């Protein structure tokens, strides 16, 4: 399976990179194995925990700083193009939800799902998928988290606008140990739970 796993090592950011016909445009993916996720993102980048509007009001619409998510923890995080879309709902999230016990056996502290959606949509979607017990859902509503890691993707052709790649990563104390990014956001080859379980 090694050939299907795109373990990113450093590459030139000037010319961009073509992988499988998909151009990485302006710059190559910034995040790679060894990146410190907290250090790589600007201070004002944070994520919004999936919540209902009332919870938002009572928490004063607080955001979650990345270090609260990653510091001193073993985290498996996966990102996907959009809540309520096909592969995301039918394959990507279930793959992690169904393997929760295996992740716990590997002493993974949290499993995180992130997408460029607002936290209320993420919350409604997580409830629909009955996945809130196993997985923590976060909204990257303005795409700033993904942009700062170079994982953004323009999906205007699919009428989704600026979104993210489909990806997964294993992050220990903020440092990326493993990163898997699909060539195409509609693929589901390298970013599933089974793949990353073998890499932890």
């Amino acid at each position: 399976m090694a050939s299907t796993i795109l373990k990113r090592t450093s590459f030139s950011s000037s010319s961009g990179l073509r992988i499988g016909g998909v151009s990485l445009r302006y710059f190559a993916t910034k995040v790679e194995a060894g990146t410190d996720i907290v250090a790589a993102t600007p201070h004002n980048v944070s994520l919004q925990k999936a919540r209902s509007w009332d919870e938002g009001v009572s928490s004063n619409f607080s955001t979650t700083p990345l270090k609260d998510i990653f510091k001193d923890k073993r985290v498996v995080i996966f990102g996907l193009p959009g809540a309520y879309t096909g592969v995301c709902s039918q394959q990507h999230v279930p793959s992690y939800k169904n393997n929760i016990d295996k992740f716990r056996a590997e002493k993974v502290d949290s499993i995180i799902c992130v997408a460029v959606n607002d936290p209320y949509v993420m919350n409604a979607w997580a409830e629909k998928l009955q996945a809130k017990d196993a997985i923590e859902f976060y909204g990257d509503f303005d795409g700033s988290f993904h942009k700062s890691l170079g994982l953004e993707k323009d999906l205007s052709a699919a009428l989704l606008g600026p979104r993210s790649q489909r990806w997964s990563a294993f992050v220990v104390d903020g440092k990326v140990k493993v990163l898997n990014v699909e060539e195409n956001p509609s693929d589901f080859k390298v970013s599933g739970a089974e793949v990353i379980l073998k890499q932890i």
Partner: protein
Amino acid sequence: MERVANRSRSRSIIKKSAPSRDMAPIAVGNVIPDGTLSYFDDKDDLQSVSVHSLAAGKKVILFGVPGAFTPTCSLKHVPGFIERAEELKSKGVDDILLVSVNDPFVMKAWAKSYPENKHVKFLADGLAKYTHALGLELDLGDKGLGTRSRRFALLLDDLKVKVANIESGGEFTVSSAEEIIKAL
């Protein structure tokens, strides 16, 4: 139903807010701008449609909300139009269109949460382009929503705006179904 604020019987109720940078808010007497909205049809195919093609030659209510799956939108504004759809139709309204700055997948999921809905069409203005053309954007970045739409309800007759009930933000006073029925 919500008690709406007391006001004069003016047909155009626009609450003052910070002026939008480019477009003045849509108003009575304007011709509604054209734009593209998207949705999933009965066969689950993604469709894009021009607003003019939906509204030309017809009496149409176009109402907008800040966001799918947020309470006032979900629990008060939208149900009001769903519940009174038959009444609106009996008063000559041909179609009831709901627009929000959300993608069509989210709008489809949100529409499904109203199984009783027969007439309201849920349309996606994913990049806020149409909302911008209407001059009704609202910055809700501090709530984790980004650029959205003010809450509003318009009555269109062959593309001409006859009634424009526009909130200054997301509050729910003049934009209800109840309020626009009075104008029919």
